[in-house]
């Protein structure tokens, strides 16, 4: 192999004084080697002890990662959470019932009526196939369990596997101690738990595992220069592509990393082999996923990888020419010509490709990553999702806790001992932290990097501190036996004045680190239990006496739909609830969380923000039978449709300019009380949310029609519905379903709609504005 001849760039790996070629020959042996060389006399025994401790720690971490994610199952029941997981569950069910080919070719006529959706070609099948394989395997082993249980526990299972990968990655980057710490940190890190609790059956659950695995295998391939590791990394990449759209991060980060290595003069044959085989094979494999297909060679997001691929060839070629040519002057000239030509050809190819449309431009979501304000101005549908909001400092603190402080320390250690691997982890950490700042949901991607780098900091610090403490103990042997009593030790050892102080300091610092880490563990458990284990399909609140009150209105409504409406009924709702309606209600929806067709969503947004008669025309044209709205005025549930309503107006207005946002605002304020805009008080969404609400007393001492979610008395209590009728309202009024009436038997259309004269002229009262809250109202992720 070519890689063998190459010298290892950068510093040699710490502790083990082994060169990379040796590691290549026996990678297993190397992993068993202990870095600590001071206790050479007890080598064999310590080795075994160390191995035993390491394996048992890993096992404990593996189990811990699994069980810490089970809060939701214990507290509620084994159920699927949130929005997207319901789609994943539905498709998995289909896959296990009908088989892979039916799944691959599935045309779903129950969503996006009347357009339909080619499910097989518009999803990342990795998650479903994984769950189905686990299910089939368990079936084969005669464990008769329901597919739902498999789906619920897939994410915790993969979180456990991630800890293993984190261990190996840490070991590859730093040493096995760092690996162990990384495994322990990532097992309970809230940033990761938020998307991998039991029941959170989403792509990210397996994708983080795949992401870390790909990175680990690639770093391994770069370190060894082995084709086999590069091949493994290509397969890891394939699994990642099949599981999550976030694979774009890999295909951009790795070229960037290669580019950085080239610039810093760390180009080597190992890098050449690793990148080229990983890129070519990974690309070919990724193109097998229908949803990705030719994007891999055609879309702007993937062009960086291709550019770097060609650049590497040019580099290799130049190296070769340099090797042949002895004359440096001649080579300089040659270099100049070649580089200019290469850059010119690349630029022309990119220009022609983009101009001819062969290379598609960057997508809006990609732009919004580079320019956080882009989505807000151009694509309301992306900006409307709460996960796509810029991250607040508090959520960094919430999700990372002490890792936030350990991260820079870890970076320091990485820079101190630069190698190909540490450069990679530094780049991964820095880029992902940037992306995590742009979008809340990308904290997830940053979590493994933050954990790894923090683990390096923790491991290196503790190692240094224990070395200091132990070095002293060697001198004062009694101190070692009796424990770390600093006073006795210092009284005996008067050789060095600074050493007792150093040892005390070290012990104090060790205690401090222990305190911090235990705080971290407490915090993580608390966050997992309080914040990230709620299924969000069942709501829980504290009652007046501190008891837990459960609102199971969503499932009540979907069950009603399933049992009381005709099987081909079409339900219109805001897209957040689309997946749940199809999965639990088994009814056709107009739009759902897949948000692939902005116009269709805008049509629904327009219907919701129009007057009833205009909305009726739209609903008739879409054959809508039922309209479903979510309303929190009775329970005080704040992420309801009224709080999301401005996004409907914005998205609707983005396509249909008849809908104008200022019509729904009063002096730039969004309100629903008597001072609200007349159009607001009479639009469909308002009427459907507040129909009959004016008669209801929600809170003692407040007038009837007091909206608890917004804390005001509503402005239009006398709502008459002309084209719709109330069909079902759940026990806590959270979900309200209306039936669209058929056209009047004897009339072409009903009397012309008139604005209530009392709407416009009422005095200004109450000025609560919830614009600030609205940003965090829409709850589901896209794709």
């Amino acid at each position, binding site marked *: 192999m070519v890689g063998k001849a190459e010298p290892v760039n950068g510093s040699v790996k710490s502790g083990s004084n082994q060169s990379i070629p040796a590691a290549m020959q026996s990678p297993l042996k190397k992993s068993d080697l202990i870095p600590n060389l001071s206790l050479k006399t007890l080598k064999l025994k310590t080795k075994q002890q160390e191995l035993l401790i390491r394996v048992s720690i890993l096992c404990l971490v593996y189990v811990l990662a699994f069980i810490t994610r089970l809060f939701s199952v214990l507290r509620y029941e084994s159920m699927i959470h949130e929005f997207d997981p319901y789609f994943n569950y539905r498709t998995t069910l289909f896959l296990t019932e009908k088989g892979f*080919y039916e799944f*691959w*070719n599935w*045309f779903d*006529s129950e969503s996006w*009526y*009347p*357009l*339909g959706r*080619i499910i097989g070609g518009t999803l990342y099948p990795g998650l479903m196939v994984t769950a189905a394989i686990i299910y089939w395997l368990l079936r084969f082993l005669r464990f008769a369990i329901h597919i739902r249980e498999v789906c619920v526990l897939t994410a915790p299972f993969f979180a456990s596997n991630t800890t293993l990968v984190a261990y190996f990655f840490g070991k590859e980057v730093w040493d096995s101690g760092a690996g162990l710490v990384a495994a322990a940190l990532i097992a309970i890190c809230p940033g990761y738990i938020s998307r991998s609790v039991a029941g959170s059956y989403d792509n990210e659950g397996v994708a983080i595992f795949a992401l870390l695995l790909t990175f680990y295998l690639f770093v391994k391939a770069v370190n060894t220069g082995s084709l086999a590791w590069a091949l493994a990394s290509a397969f890891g990449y394939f699994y990642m592509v099949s599981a999550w759209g976030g694979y774009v991060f890999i295909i951009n980060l790795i070229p960037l990393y290669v580019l950085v290595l080239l610039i810093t003069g760390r180009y080597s044959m190992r890098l050449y082999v690793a990148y080229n085989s990983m890129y070519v094979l990974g690309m070919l494999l990724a193109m097998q996923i229908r949803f990705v297909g030719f994007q891999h060679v055609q879309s702007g997001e993937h062009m960086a990888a291709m550019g770097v691929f060609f650049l590497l060839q040019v580099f290799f070629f130049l190296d070769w020419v340099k090797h042949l040519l002895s004359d440096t002057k001649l080579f300089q000239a040659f270099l100049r010509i070649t580089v200019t030509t290469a850059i010119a050809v690349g630029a022309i190819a990119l220009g022609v490709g983009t101009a001819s449309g062969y290379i598609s431009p960057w997508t809006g979501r990609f732009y919004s990553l580079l320019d956080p304000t882009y989505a807000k101005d151009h694509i309301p549908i992306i900006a409307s999702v709460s996960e796509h909001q810029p991250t607040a400092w508090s959520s960094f603190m919430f999700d990372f806790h002490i890792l936030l402080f350990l991260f820079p320390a870890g970076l320091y250690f990485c820079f101190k001992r630069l190698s190909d691997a540490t450069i990679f982890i530094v780049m991964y950490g820095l880029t992902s932290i940037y992306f995590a700042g742009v979008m809340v949901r990308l904290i997830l991607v940053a979590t493994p990097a933050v954990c790894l780098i923090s683990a390096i900091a923790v491991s290196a610090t503790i190692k240094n501190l224990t070395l200091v403490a132990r070095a002293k103990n060697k001198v004062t042997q009694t101190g070692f036996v009796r424990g770390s009593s600093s006073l006795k030790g210092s009284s005996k050892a008067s050789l060095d004045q600074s050493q007792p102080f150093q040892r005390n300091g070290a012990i104090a610092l060790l205690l401090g680190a222990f305190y911090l880490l235990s705080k971290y563990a407490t915090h993580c458990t608390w966050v997992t239990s309080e914040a990230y284990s709620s299924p969000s399909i069942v709501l829980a609140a504290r009652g007046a006496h501190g008891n837990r009150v459960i609102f199971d209105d969503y499932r009540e409504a979907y069950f009603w739909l399933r049992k009381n409406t005709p099987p*081909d009924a079409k339900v219109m709702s805001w897209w957040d609830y689309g997946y749940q309606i199809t999965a639990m209600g088994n009814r056709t929806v107009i739009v759902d969380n897949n948000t692939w067709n902005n116009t269709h969503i805008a049509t629904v947004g327009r219907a919701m923000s129009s007057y009833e008669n205009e909305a009726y025309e739209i609903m008739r*044209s879409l054959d809508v039978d039922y309209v479903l709205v979510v309303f929190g005025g009775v329970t005080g549930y704040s992420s309801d449709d009224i709080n999301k309503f401005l996004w409907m107006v914005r998205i609707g207005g983005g396509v249909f300019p008849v809908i104008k946002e200022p019509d729904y605002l009063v002096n730039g304020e969004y309100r629903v009380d008597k001072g609200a805009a007349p159009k607001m008080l009479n639009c469909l969404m308002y009427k459907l949310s507040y129909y009959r609400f004016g008669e209801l007393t929600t809170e003692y001492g407040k007038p009837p029609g007091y909206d608890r979610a917004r804390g005001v008395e509503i402005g239009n209590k006398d709502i008459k519905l002309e084209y719709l009728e109330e069909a079902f309202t759940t026990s806590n009024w959270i979900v309200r379903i209306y039936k669209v009436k*058929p*056209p*009047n*038997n*004897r*009339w*072409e*259309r009903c*009397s*012309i709609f008139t604005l209530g004269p009392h709407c416009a002229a009422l005095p200004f009262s109450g000025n609560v504005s919830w614009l600030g809250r609205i940003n965090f109202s829409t709850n589901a992720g896209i794709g």
Partner: protein
Amino acid sequence: MPKLPLFLILIPFLPFLCTSFSPENPSSRRVLVLLDDLALKSSHSVYFKSLQSRGFELDFKLADDPKIGLQRYGQYLYDGLILFCPTTDRFGGSIDLAAILDFVDSGHDLIIAADNNASDLIREIATECGVDFDEDPAAMVIDHTSYAVSETEGDHTLIASDDFIKSNVLLGSEKIEAPVLFQGIGHSLSPANSLVLKVLSASPSAYSANPKSKLSNPPSLTGSAISLVSILQARNNARILISGSLVMFSNRFFRSGVQKAGTLTKHEKSSNEQFLTELSKWVFHERGHLKAVNVQHHKDGEADEPSMYRINDDLVYSVEIYEWSGRSWEPYVADDVQVQFYMMSPYVLKNLSTDKKGRYFTAFKVPDVYGVFQFKVEYQRLGYTSLSLSKQIPVRPYRHNEYERFIPAAYPYYGAAFSMMAGFFIFTAVHLYNK
């Protein structure tokens, strides 16, 4: 308890009592006639006789009879209702405005004859059916140019109108020669209602005013905007006839001769009888009642209906359409029945060809677009039952193995790929072992 045995005896006959309008047998059989005055029964006997001779059971009741009711135990007792009671303010029994509208909305037929001095109740019923009578209760339709010539000069409220709607379905195939005599209140059609139609309209010189008083203001209704007789076919195919004159149904008008002012021809007999009888045939579904049954579609060359089509499939669509002749279902023959293959807009619009035995069929290719389509037949012709059929069918794209496996245009690429592989193999062998 003498009633109980009687009731038990009657139980076996209940099914006969419960028969009502059905699409299979659309001829209404039992008709309730509400009258102001039982004298109308004899003065309008010709009209009633013609109905009875066609098999209708007429149940004459005074409008304020406290025992009348349209339904009992949720079942309608009648299939049709004739309101010859223009002055009634409120009905007896359980009948009111809402009951009559429910009666119509559940698919039953209605004939309303108003008059000047029509009560508010009758006006309200008419308004709900898309017709507005002149608000002035004393107003009548006056026409100084096309009045009916009579012995006395009169006030020209007796109108001879021959401005019929042109439709054989409504008025029968026999041409109506003589004008129709009309005397009563005029009405206008509500602009918001497109279902209501003028059958007999006034001449351009007509106007609606109180003939007794002097005309001080311009009349609110003038010219051919005035409708004398209107019909409405509701969406559920209930049929309604609204006339502004009760007297036009009377034996007197049926028998009298007519001469329209300004013309010389004097007709022996007015066309009232022909006009109104033919219209009553339409109202009671003896004519123009269509049914569409047996909608079928399948792939060309197959017999079973699939649950889903693929893009570019060839398919065959057929439907059978029959018309009720009064006694039996006859094949309906027309050349303008169309089918749409519809998803938000029609992708295919084709005329159906017929075999003259009621079956309509066509064949077409599914468009190259996937989605949830509908086969739609929207057949709305004047006077006929509106047929509105839609059948949902999803259209899926090709499966992964339905594409052509090898395409000739790609042979150069296959060649390139395989020659590359072979070349690489040879190159490797040479490079490794040729040193």
